[in-house]
């Protein structure tokens, strides 16, 4: 019979499987699992409703509440606000990840992943990469709706691309904080509650809404100056509407690296421990 020749798993004949998973295979498995997240969204696009509406709501709200007071006119404020919202949205877009991860773990899908010969990190990497869809939608809606309101880029396309690449790098780093919270929290609801606790101070204790932080009390101004979200906002401002970039790009990258260095190993440890 010819079929017996191609049958791979004959008892005792099977090749010894590799004892470690190479980084390339881990990346490939991560991409497969990212595909899973995308496929889920394709089946229930309503899950993206909040992601789609969020930039519109925030843009309108901040523009018309603060526009007059901060910059004298809504039109000139829009040029400062939108880059700030790029930073804010990069933060907000990570919030759903922890909740989804926590649900996954409770549903037992992760047990299956853990019983497969793939790296422990692959499902987490897959979740983070798969969530990129959210980042893209948020940014496209933000810029699209901003343009309707009158926002214009004032720099070259390469700088604009650089700005969004920087926001994406920072977003990927912050995703690991969300992953960590998703792994530690006992239930999806807790993840949501915790998310507000860490996202809000980071986002609003910054220069995203007003580039001039000198009117803040001393302690808050000090925080706003070191806050990575401020650095990201300033970098994006400079790269999209002009002005000196300074060290903001480097500060942002350093923060991103620092966040990953701390949260990734912690997340991996929590994940392995969680039975």
């Amino acid at each position, binding site marked *: 019979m010819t079929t017996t020749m191609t049958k791979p798993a004959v008892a005792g004949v099977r090749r010894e499987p590799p004892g470690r998973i190479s980084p390339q295979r881990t990346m490939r498995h991560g991409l497969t699992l990212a595909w899973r997240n995308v496929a889920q969204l394709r089946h229930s696009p309503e899950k993206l409703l909040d992601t789609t509406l969020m930039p519109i709501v925030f843009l309108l709200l901040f523009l018309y509440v603060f526009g007059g007071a901060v910059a004298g006119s809504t039109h000139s404020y829009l040029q400062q606000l939108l880059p700030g919202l790029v930073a804010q949205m990069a933060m907000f877009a990570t919030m759903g990840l922890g909740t989804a991860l926590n649900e996954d773990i409770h549903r037992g899908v992760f047990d299956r992943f853990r019983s497969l*010969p793939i790296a422990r990190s692959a499902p987490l990497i897959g979740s983070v990469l798969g969530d990129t869809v959210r980042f893209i939608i948020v940014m496209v809606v933000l810029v699209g709706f901003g343009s309707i309101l009158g926002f214009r880029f004032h720099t070259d396309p390469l700088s604009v691309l650089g700005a969004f690449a920087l926001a994406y790098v920072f977003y990927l780093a912050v995703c690991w904080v969300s992953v960590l919270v998703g792994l530690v929290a006992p239930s999806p609801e807790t993840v949501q509650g915790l998310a507000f606790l860490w996202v809000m101070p980071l986002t609003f204790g910054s220069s995203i809404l007003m580039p001039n932080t000198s009117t803040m009390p001393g302690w808050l101004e000090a925080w706003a100056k070191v806050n990575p979200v401020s650095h990201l906002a300033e970098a994006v401002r400079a790269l999209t509407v002009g002005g000196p970039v300074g060290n903001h790009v480097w500060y942002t990258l350093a923060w991103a690296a620092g966040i990953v260095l701390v949260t990734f190993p912690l997340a991996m440890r929590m994940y392995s421990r969680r039975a």
Partner: protein
Amino acid sequence: MSYVIQAEGLQKRFGDTKALDGVDIAARRGTVLGVLGPNGAGKTTAVRVLATLLKPDAGRAEVCGYDVRKDAVRVRAMIGLTGQYASVDEELTGSENLRMIARLLDFGRAEARSRAVELLERFRLTDAGGRAVKTYSGGMRRRLDLAASLINRPEVIFLDEPTTGLDPRARNEVWETVREVVADGATVLLTTQYLEEADALADRIAVFDHGRVIAEGTSDDLKAQIGRQTLAVRAADAARAGQLAAIVGELAGERPEVQEPTGLVTVPVSDAAMLSALVRRLDDAGIEAAELALRMPSLDEVFLTLTGHLAEETRSENLVAEGSLA
């Protein structure tokens, strides 16, 4: 190496609960090991340790010769696991689920697709393959879960209560699948609360209670371990049941039970020679026997003798508890 699953002295604690309290089990290649026990006996914990999802506190376990602690990645390459609770992605379609897992097992895109088609067909899910799993019935979900654990034709398959909550037809399908994969050379460790299931499928049975193996052997071994058989006799004329019971009681030296309204008289016996003595006495008394048999004790009786409590009792209690959770 003839043992593909081998565990010695496994211990696992959760707080004050000793989920595993020194478990030794072993399964030979190409056989079914049935792990039988009531809810909370430690079955799931044992499966999770062997499938590398949980690290034991003490003890040693090997699957296909690989240590579950030190060589977990290799163990994972050899096993398929169907957990007690469905571990398929509700949001994806059946076909997407299978393809995803095939890709994670390093199948190429086309290979993954054809394997998914093949398994969907084998588990009668071809029509449902394009639908989201959340629209599946319990039985369909189980079948998909089972299909997912067979994708890379694993050497060892762990099935944790694969038929709990299934209707008899779905249960029979799972049984058929188990027999098929074993015929293909796989080794199966199957946990169950159903004595009938262990009896029907398992080559050897390990009876779990409170994190320990309280008995191990073939179904017949277990029955023999209890020792005593049951004599069952029924008179053709039901009116003579009382007289029959008196004779049986005298011979057995023990008061027999008389079932109403059938008039079936049963008594435990230790000496099979009693059967011929009984036949002679019935002749003398002119009682015609409509039924006369020496029966092995049922596995329920085995469990009762081994643990001092009925498996069935525990099960129905737990069903109530689970029902109120849902």
